[in-house]
């Protein structure tokens, strides 16, 4: 007996939770004590008067029951003689779309509910696009609350037609429209022939019992990401993982990505002993015939179909954070078992949920979907998501909060990285620095506007210059006159501003110079990104620490006054955040201007 994982989705109040309650009730999956509890709850929180409120069976959080809404996805289990089911009841509110996507990501089929009185809504479309994007190919369109439209065939036909027209450009293989009443029970488990003699198709349960669960991973070539290297002693070295697709047998030739090493499968080890075959979905341990180097995050695949690696991809991304996506900001990523650092280098477009139109965008906000270019900091083994979900899906994680902020699907690799080779040069950074009798460094000043960064940086450069050192200053205001004149002060532009300056500083350090950067650089993420560009010890973060009131009192350029009057928006310290360094190499407190000449003594001692 196989298992079908499916979701119920659709707009709020379309009756998703009620439908699941009905399914569980009619397939006799509700225990007596749960029914008793439901009766009590129905009286207390119910919205159905004297009747049982089935939604209360799945809305398990206190906040959900009090507000009568679904906030997070609930998983329920039931079985019929034909199949075992895991159903994820997903929330309808736009605000909780990420929870809906959580449920959809592991589903093989979807029931999309539509209120027969309301027809296809924006949220119906949003959920349809996410379901399609996440690779679900079979959808039942449950046109619900038929009891409230007098069981009208015309109403049903009209909605079905409208939906099919909308879904033309989505990638569903089948759409099955079923008229139901979750509340009364027609066409859920029992047919509704009395009320709707005009409908001769399947009930929802018939559909669930017969919709294809197989996603073709069995017939694809063998691929297994390595999750864990099992090495209890010197005589045993096994590569543990869950097979993403295909079959494997002892004697099969395999190839490891990214190393390209070849070997053959010697044994398939499981707890019960040696196994003759490993198949898609199974967690196994492989022993190879040769002593090849394999680590977590590598991929073992059939030698006839080796897995390619790339570091630049065109992807579809669903953004799941209140903090908008910032191109240029480094995010952590996880793709199969491989961790990496990534940046979004370009947003091709944002998807209009209603029309499917491609809109120009510089960022993605919560619940928005876009086509974006992602750059990994190292080559990763992959397959397009459409070919293999496990090798083509990734998540994006905020590096500071560690929240999961994005879900990504690889469309294809951009060949740029493999075509633009790094030109190895014979004169090195240290050779260039040595000629100047110095060591190359990046001295990165960060702090509020008016804290004294430029003043100290200028004094420091004069001092170094007098000692015969070769230096260069990158000053925030100056760079914005040239290289960064196209950038404004939004969060996204600030991130790009710092990315460019960090790259320039890196080139100058490579030239053997002592580079002084004086930028507000308000976000920790970007300062960490800058640090990451340099060798250990090369990057010195100097926090010019002055209280906001003091900076505002000085107001050298009159900017604080402007910002307070509302004439300047996104001004750091006023309506845009400054994240102070947690562990700078140097902290300079500038309480008054006369302390500044003394400040430059300190970095030299580092």
């Amino acid at each position: 007996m196989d298992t079908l994982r499916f979701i119920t989705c659709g707009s709020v109040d379309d009756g998703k939770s009620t439908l699941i309650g009905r399914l569980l009730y009619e397939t006799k999956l509700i225990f007596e004590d749960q029914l008793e509890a439901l009766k009590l709850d129905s009286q207390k929180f119910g919205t159905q008067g004297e009747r049982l409120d089935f939604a209360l069976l799945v809305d398990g959080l206190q906040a959900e029951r009090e507000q009568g809404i679904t906030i997070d996805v609930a998983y329920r289990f039931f079985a019929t003689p034909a199949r075992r089911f895991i159903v994820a009841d997903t929330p309808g509110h736009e605000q909780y779309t990420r929870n809906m996507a959580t449920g959809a990501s592991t589903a093989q089929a979807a029931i999309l509910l539509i209120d027969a009185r309301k027809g296809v809504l924006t949220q119906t479309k949003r959920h349809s696009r996410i379901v399609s994007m996440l690779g679900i190919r079979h959808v039942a369109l449950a046109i619900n609350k038929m009891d409230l439209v007098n069981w009208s065939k015309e109403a049903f036909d009209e909605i079905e037609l409208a939906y099919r027209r909308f879904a033309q450009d989505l990638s569903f293989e089948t759409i099955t429209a079923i008229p139901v009443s979750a509340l009364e029970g027609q066409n859920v488990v029992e047919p509704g022939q009395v009320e709707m003699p005009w409908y001769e198709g399947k009930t929802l349960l018939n559909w669930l019992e017969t919709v294809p669960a197989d996603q073709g991973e069995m017939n694809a070539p063998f691929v297994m990401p390595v999750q864990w290297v099992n090495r209890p002693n010197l005589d045993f070295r096994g590569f543990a993982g869950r097979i993403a697709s295909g079959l494997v047998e002892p004697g099969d030739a395999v190839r490891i990505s990214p190393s390209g090493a070849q070997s053959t499968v010697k044994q398939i080890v499981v707890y019960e002993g040696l196994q003759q075959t490993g198949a898609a979905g199974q967690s196994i341990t492989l022993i190879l015939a040769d002593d090849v180097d394999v680590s977590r995050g590598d991929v073992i695949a059939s030698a006839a179909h080796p897995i390619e690696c790339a570091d630049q991809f065109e992807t579809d991304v669903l953004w799941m954070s209140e903090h908008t996506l910032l191109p240029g900001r480094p995010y952590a990523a996880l793709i199969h078992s491989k961790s990496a650092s990534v940046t979004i280098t370009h947003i091709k477009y944002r998807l209009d949920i209603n029309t499917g139109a491609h809109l120009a965008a510089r960022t993605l906000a919560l619940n928005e979907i876009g086509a974006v270019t992602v750059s990994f900091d190292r080559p990763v083994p992959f397959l397009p998501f459409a070919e293999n979900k496990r090798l083509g899906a990734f998540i994006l994680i905020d590096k500071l909060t560690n929240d999961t902020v994005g879900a990504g699907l690889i469309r294809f690799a951009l060949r740029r990285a493999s075509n633009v080779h790094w030109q190895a040069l014979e004169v090195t950074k240290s050779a260039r620095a040595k000629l100047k009798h110095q060591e190359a460094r990046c001295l990165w000043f960060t702090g509020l506007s008016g804290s004294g960064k430029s003043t100290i940086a200028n004094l420091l450069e004069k001092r170094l210059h007098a000692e015969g050192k070769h230096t260069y200053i990158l000053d925030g205001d100056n760079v914005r006159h040239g290289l960064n004149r196209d950038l404004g002060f939004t969060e996204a532009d600030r991130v790009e501003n710092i990315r460019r300056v960090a790259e320039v500083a890196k080139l100058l350090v490579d030239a053997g110079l002592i580079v002084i950067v004086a930028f507000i650089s308000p976000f920790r993420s970007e300062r960490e990104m800058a640090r990451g560009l340099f060798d250990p010890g090369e990057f010195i973060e100097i926090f010019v620490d002055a209280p906001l009131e003091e900076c505002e009192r000085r107001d050298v350029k009159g900017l604080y006054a402007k910002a307070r009057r509302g004439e300047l928006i996104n001004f750091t310290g006023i309506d845009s955040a400054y994240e102070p360094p947690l562990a700078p190499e140097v902290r300079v407190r500038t309480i008054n201007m006369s302390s500044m000449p003394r400040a430059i003594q300190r970095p030299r001692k580092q």
Partner: protein
Amino acid sequence: MMTSDVYSELESESIEIIREVAATARKPVMLYSIGKDSSVMLRLAQKAFYPAPIPFPLMHIDTGWKFREMIAFRDRTARQLGFQLITYTNPRGAAEGIGPITHGSAYHTDVMKTEALKQALDLHGFDFVFGGARRDEEKSRAKERIFSFRAVGHRWDPKAQRPELWNLYNTRINAGETVRVFPLSNWTEADIWQYIRQENIPIVPLYFAARRPVVNRYGQWILVDDHRLPLEPGEEPELRMIRFRTLGCYPLTAGIESHATTLDEVVAEILGANTSERQGRIIDHDGAGSMERKKQEGYF
């Protein structure tokens, strides 16, 4: 030996989860409560790392009120399988003599389970903690992620769970934060029993019917496990064929009348059951949303 398809899928998913923690956690631990779910989780951990031993310790939070047969089974299993077993009892609770009979089930659970668990995790500095909870057990568990993030102080915020897509588990946390991991999330009670039968997994004998001394309270059969259960006036323990569907602290877990003395009979009884297993758990009935509230405070 090939296992049946359903269990192969559930088993493989659980093994993947267990391995992911071992590969990414700084200091993981597996909570071992001695019950049937723990027994299955333990077998899955053995399978995940075979032929290597389990690369993390198991920990039992001992409330002092577990059935005696459970403690004997725990020590026997640890000895036979050779895993590292940590046991912990809240010293404050032990010193003050806190128990379910004298202090009530809610306070006992709070001090001897929730508080004890948090103390033990902090004491050892564990960052990833496996638990054997299943989503089909209770409504708030049905809502929980497989990797359930806990803020500093072990608090669960059910309204702000991390999205969890595909089988990509975000295991990044900051200092002081922890993650509860539930490898059995997608198993049902029937799955657990059928798997125990298929795999011949040893379980505490209390799960099988035997003649046991019990008293009937509020319509539930309470085992007289030792002298600590005070008898009401006129109450006389009687011997009845009793078994347990779920095991917790002994005065808080009720048995059921049954003649199922073999695994086959137990499985047959479960498949035909018309009440849920947690009906025998008295702590769940402490009020609406009681499990959710306990979980927010750090309970499993």
